[in-house]
């Protein structure tokens, strides 16, 4: 189990870095799929079966297809002119922020005492327990999410519909 965790985590980290460092958007998108699958594996290890399935169906499936569509619509070919290189100042700033965040997260976790995982309660991460939370403690956020989706639909229609009266 431990080796599985470390190898999945390594895959997730490396593919994540590759997403950022590719120049061609299509390659970034493909590495992103690898990343999604590795993270889904991590969820499975944490006994979150439902989240793992959702991760693959929604992210690797639906959202990835959207990404690919956008990339296809925007530029099918290699960009003709060289992409503008980020300025040195921006690079330094980005690296500084990344290193600082990593150091802070590392320091924050360093003193946490990790307990060996005993057997988790049955059905911890399956649909039933997620549904139970959605209809009890998280009832209101669940309903508010529907408002959020409605607003997004109305908004996209307003911006994209051919003819508004």
């Amino acid at each position, binding site marked *: 189990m431990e080796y599985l965790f470390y190898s999945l985590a390594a895959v997730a980290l490396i593919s994540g870095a590759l997403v950022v460092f590719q120049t061609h958007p299509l390659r970034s998108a493909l590495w992103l799929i690898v990343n999604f699958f590795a993270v889904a594996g991590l969820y499975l290890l944490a006994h979150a079966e439902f989240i793992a399935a959702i991760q693959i169906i929604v992210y690797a499936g639906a959202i990835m297809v959207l990404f690919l569509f956008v990339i296809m619509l925007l530029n099918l070919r290699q960009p003709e002119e060289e992409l503008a290189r980020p300025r040195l100042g921006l690079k330094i700033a980005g690296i500084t922020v990344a290193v600082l965040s990593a150091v802070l997260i590392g320091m924050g976790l360093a003193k*946490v005492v990790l307990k060996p995982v005993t057997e988790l309660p049955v059905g911890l991460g399956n649909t039933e327990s997620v549904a139970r939370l959605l209809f009890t403690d998280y009832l209101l956020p669940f309903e508010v999410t529907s408002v*959020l989706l409605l607003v997004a639909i109305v908004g996209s*229609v*307003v911006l994209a519909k051919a003819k508004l009266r």
Partner: protein
Amino acid sequence: MSLTIPTFSLASIGPWLTLSVAAIAILVWDALSKERPAAVPAVSLAALVIAAVQSLTLLGKKGTDFAGMVYVDGFTALAYLILILGAALTIFLSWRYLEEYGKNLSEYYALLLFATTGMMIMVAGAHLIMIFLGLEVMSIAVYVLAGFLREDLKSNEAAMKYLVLGAFSSAILLFGMALIYGAAGGTLYLNELAKKLAVTKAVTQPLILLGLGLIVVGFGFKVAAVPFHMWTPDVYEGAPTSVTAYMAVAVKAAAVATFLRVLYVSFPGFAADWTWLLWGLAVATMTLGNVVAIAQTNIKRMLAYSSIAHAGYLLVGLVAANQLAAVGILYYLLAYTLMNIGAFAAILLVSRQQDRYLNIYDYCGLGRQHPGLAAAMSVFMFALAGMPPTAGFVGKLYIFAAAVQAGYIWLVILAVMNSLVSVYYYLRITVLMYMRPAEADLGPVSFTPAVTATLAATALAVVLVGIFPGWFYDLAAASVKIFSL
């Protein structure tokens, strides 16, 4: 297996229900009728009035509802009322202006009501997920409103910039919340966070500080604090003028009120850490906003930088972190709503048709041609500069007094110096209106009843709220007792 749904009272979220149901009803009504329904603005206003009445009934309450997801208390109710006021005044500015562009669509009002609902969800949120959902409902609606004039390139630019940068800031905010969730050992309820973080502080402090920093960045973007302000001038300039007014007052009010609650309820144990951070942000925000505003010749851009500067004054209140500061912030949000919407009403009138005259030199000679309009605009400019006897003065007085009380003398000195700088560019408009002859004939101003009434009412209110601040002070002082400061 049985499932017990927690008990709740729909009255606790009455204003949200009214506004979102009204928005959906407007959309359905529009879809079902052959002609564009003309009464949509009136229906939206009616919904806002009902929501205001519902908010009033929440004033005296204290507690949470929906399994601890929403706060039901006086602070929330006062924030609701300020947001409703902002939305209602915006609707008064809207329909004639949109008609000029042939864009007086029902969807505009539906989105405006949805945005207001999102703001209410945000300020009432007692759980970080609720706050995030509210923020997103508000933001998505406002992104679309900023790009509502689809044929206008500047409006497109505004929507695009706001969307891309806003999405980043939402992601940063969410990342901060995730880190806080982990650092606290698994809770997102605001009041539980304070207790749990006090315990886990010894172990996970760096993680907490990083999470807190990211949350500050996320809210800093929404209130347009320097250095997260880059989007503000372009978005304010490009968005339809009525939407600019709404963004300047309501979005800022919702973000500041929520920020206040998160800091004061969840992170009082880290006050020493966030006060110096906000101290720096406040000074940078006030200084940059006021100094750059001097160089602007487009009035919408000038008010964009002015809104950045006002975000800085509000941050001074957040730094002070005492009862008077919380009262001052609420009062300032009310005053800012009145004076800024008023100023935008004047801009709408002076710009004639379709935003034609937005240069500050178009205000030359206005004092002679339209004394009433010029007088009202002067009132707003005096109020924004913070001169007595207007509401802008009293708001600044409360906030600066709170900061002195908390011992931030230097911060107040810098804030007062900034107010002096701001007098230059606000009063320049007044000088142009009264001391300079008109450069060219810009054509007649069409005083439409709704905009003129808004102008007169806000001008009167700015002065009256400034002369009689006591009633609101008492309300606000009673409502901020919930914060143990």
